[in-house]
């Protein structure tokens, strides 16, 4: 098998004195959807922040496409091809939907390709085209999530990381977004997904990691994990 697109080995990280990740090992292959699930505070968001360069790992290595990126600045990692859609969407107030999307392409200079990609995002989420002149933070929660994902796509990442896709969204909206992600993956996008709702996570992904206390507790194909009674007892009681 070829080298995975992203691979972490023995990554530790945290906030100042507080260590959160205790030696994480993880791999994402090109073309996959990988889900990260785990209890609250397990360190999922911390992991994504460490990958995207907002936090520097205190040990271990993070390799992306054959080069070490651990501890690099966020802009460098983004340039390398990793986009991070943060928890809570974090759209920019005071900027239109369109400007928010364009900010996703901040580091890019290929004007024509940017315009094409914008068009593509609008095709993926037609509601955004309708609302493109509206202040992004006046969208409803689901629309905001679409805008956030769209903004992530705009950097044309090779790996798209989404934190808490469904948090605070109505079940119907989650279904809708899930469909969009599947479409995106079909078009070749590699996705690393953090999701609190384990059922949704397993449905959307090929493989999953279960994170506990800053370490990987289980990993495997999503379909298998979903059938595993020990997993469903701990995580799947609706």
């Amino acid at each position, binding site marked *: 098998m070829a080298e995975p697109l992203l691979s972490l080995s023995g990554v530790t990280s945290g906030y100042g004195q507080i260590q959160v990740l205790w030696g994480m090992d993880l791999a994402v292959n090109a073309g996959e959807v990988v889900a990260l699930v*785990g*209890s*609250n*505070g397990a360190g999922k968001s911390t992991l994504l922040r460490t990958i995207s360069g907002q936090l520097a790992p205190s040990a271990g290595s993070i390799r992306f496409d054959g080069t070490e990126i651990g501890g690099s600045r966020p802009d460098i990692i983004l340039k390398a091809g990793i986009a991070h859609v943060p928890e809570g969407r974090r759209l920019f107030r005071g900027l239109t939907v369109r400007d928010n999307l364009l900010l996703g392409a901040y580091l890019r200079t290929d004007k024509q390709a940017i315009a094409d990609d914008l068009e593509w995002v609008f095709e993926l989420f037609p509601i955004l085209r309708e609302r493109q002149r509206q202040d992004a933070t006046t969208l*409803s*929660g*689901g629309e905001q999530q679409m805008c956030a994902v769209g903004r992530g796509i705009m950097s044309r990442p090779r790996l798209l990381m989404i934190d808490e896709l469904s*948090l*605070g*969204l*109505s*079940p*119907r*909206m*989650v*279904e*809708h977004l899930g469909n969009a992600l599947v479409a995106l993956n079909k078009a070749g996008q590699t996705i690393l997904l953090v999701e*609190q709702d384990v*059922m949704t996570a397993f449905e959307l992904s090929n493989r999953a990691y279960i994170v506990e206390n800053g370490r990987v507790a289980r990993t495997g194909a999503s379909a298998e994990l979903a059938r595993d009674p020990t997993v469903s007892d*701990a*995580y*799947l*009681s*609706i």
Partner: protein
Amino acid sequence: MSDPILRLEGVSKTFGGLKALTDVSFGLNEGEVVGLIGPNGAGKTTLVNVVTGNLRRSSGRIMFEGEDVGLQKPYQAARRGLARTFQIVQPFPAMTVLENVTAGALFGGGAASVGDARDKARQSLEFVGLAPLADRPAANLALAARKRLELAKSLAMNPKVLMLDEVNAGLNSSEIDGALDLIRKIADSGVTVLIIEHLMKVVLSLSKRLLVLHHGQLIADGPSREIVSDERVIEAYLGQKFAARLKEMHHG
């Protein structure tokens, strides 16, 4: 049945041109646990804000214990016994857990002195199981503990009606189970509870009655089982797939 403890009569709220609530009417009976669901932006949080005086209703009446409280300030609501939690938890970050709860007992709970309030705060912390963390700064708490703190603070205020805005969002299953027990315990002590939640598991396991908001309008109000199979609710909120999953669970 006696008069509802809290009753909304034709309450509307507009933000500029946006109608966040339109002509909402319902009542909560004393001791009842009621769930409030609806899509994002339906107006759930706005409804709580209007009841507690954080926002001023545009029209309609809000009756609490037979009195129109539509013009009250938040602090008056708190003193009357209308407590709430925030969707985004709002502790006093630099104060200890105990001090946070003491504030609730002192101002909302009508404690006579800071000392008395502290005693009462200890009891609430005991009740929610946070007593061991009493002297930690609130800012250092993990999310689940922070949500518990929010509950303890509300409890210290001797609430008659407690409105919980997504207190379970972001908690994992075992944490949710703990929270459920706690909310049940609170309800058993006679407090009327209104739960806002997107997690159907929580809503359904606690409340026999559901209210559904959609585009600021109350589109359904009735027994939970009926509501979740109501076509309009499925269309507006649950979505077909989820509704099917729910149905399966009930049958299975």
